[in-house]
């Protein structure tokens, strides 16, 4: 591991806050950066953790050499492991009208173009079993009235285990609702399924008609994934 230079007091305080789970996201990124480059940062984290352990139980006192050797050995083994990925759900997107009737005269009409690109699905064949878990799908329903986006209902499915690809349809809402799933992100990359894109493109012309009239092959019943607020 690179040794880098001594860390400053600000980084040390961030390490301390992270040890308590009380550090904001940008700080976490900074700490992980320091971890990669600075032995001082790694040693400091170890000291803080050791102090906590010893305060709670003196028989956890340990020489740092033993602990450092343990991590060094584990690092070698971790280097041989495939990187695990458990993609997180996106923040819910604002509801967007998808049909021309809604687009006419609607301030939100200009956003329709964006909706298509947020489509995403992970085809089962594309998933390396065990390493990608669908963390959740956000399904947005829109009231049939064009231009009204305050009536949207958001529901999210709970994170699912890896191994099988799951697309949870959590809520289809009122009758005549259009359902727009948001994107799935795996490690920051959108994954597309062209079949679904075409299906949706074909159906968006029909105002007020539920796009997913019958559950498609890609969609699993909501009963198996309890929706969670």
């Amino acid at each position, binding site marked *: 591991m690179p040794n880098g230079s001594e860390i400053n007091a600000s980084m040390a305080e961030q390490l301390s806050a992270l040890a308590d789970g009380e550090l904001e996201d940008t700080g976490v990124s900074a700490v992980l950066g320091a971890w990669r480059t600075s032995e001082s940062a790694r040693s400091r984290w170890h*000291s803080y953790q050791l102090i906590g352990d010893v305060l709670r139980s003196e028989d956890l006192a*340990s*020489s740092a050499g033993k602990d450092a050797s343990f991590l060094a050995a584990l690092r070698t083994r971790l280097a041989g492991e495939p990187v*695990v990925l458990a993609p997180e759900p996106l923040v819910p997107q604002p509801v967007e009208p998808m049909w021309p009737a809604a687009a006419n005269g609607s301030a939100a009409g200009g956003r329709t173009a964006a909706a298509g690109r947020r489509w995403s699905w992970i085809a089962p064949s594309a998933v390396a079993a065990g390493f990608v878990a669908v963390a959740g799908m956000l399904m947005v329903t829109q009231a049939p009235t064009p231009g009204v986006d305050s009536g949207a209902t958001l529901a999210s499915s709970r994170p699912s285990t890896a191994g099988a690809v799951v697309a949870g349809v959590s809520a289809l809402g009122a009758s005549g609702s259009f359902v727009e799933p948001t994107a799935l992100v795996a490690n920051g990359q959108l994954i597309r399924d062209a079949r679904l894109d075409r299906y949706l493109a074909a159906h968006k012309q029909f105002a007020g008609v539920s796009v997913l009239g019958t559950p498609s092959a890609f969609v699993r019943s909501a009963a198996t994934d309890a929706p969670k607020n």
Partner: protein
Amino acid sequence: MNAPDADAPLIERVKRGDVKAFEMLVVKYQRRIERLIGRMVRDVDLVPDIAQETFIRAYRAIPQFRGESAFYTWLYRIAVNTAKKTLGELKRDPLITESARAIRDDDDETSRTENELSDGETPESLLASKQVAEAVNSAIEALSDELRQAITLREIEGLSYEEIAESMNCPIGTVRSRIFRAREAIALRLRPLLDARQGLRW
């Protein structure tokens, strides 16, 4: 003990593919896991290997960890299962049992006594551990009341910064600063003990 949420920021990063975040968690839990395994397994030489295996299995299973229990609770179960599995394999393997018997015979001729040190400790490392514990204790006593109270509420009572702020009637930023300064004061006293040997590289 730490509130379950304390590990959430790092676990999120591990789930996003950051193995270094996992390393940080390993450094946090390695001692507790080794102590746990040491209570289940009589052969102390097995402890580090089973602990390593535990963390590898945890790493692979991270996608299945959903935060429904505390991370340590989940890790604890993996450690217990890994230890049991290892012990079971040793029992079933006649070759290992034979050689283990042979090793035990050799041991009778060596200096292993009934007072065998636990956890693979040598007299030197046991002394080092004792010195670490003593240094922490005397450093804690030397802290100002405010710093000692802050770190005690955090590490022993497991309160959040917000709860500590309420308890000590000060801003959260002050809590964070006091805990940090307490840790720094104790770490300073530990530094000569922990950095003592060459090649002790993180």
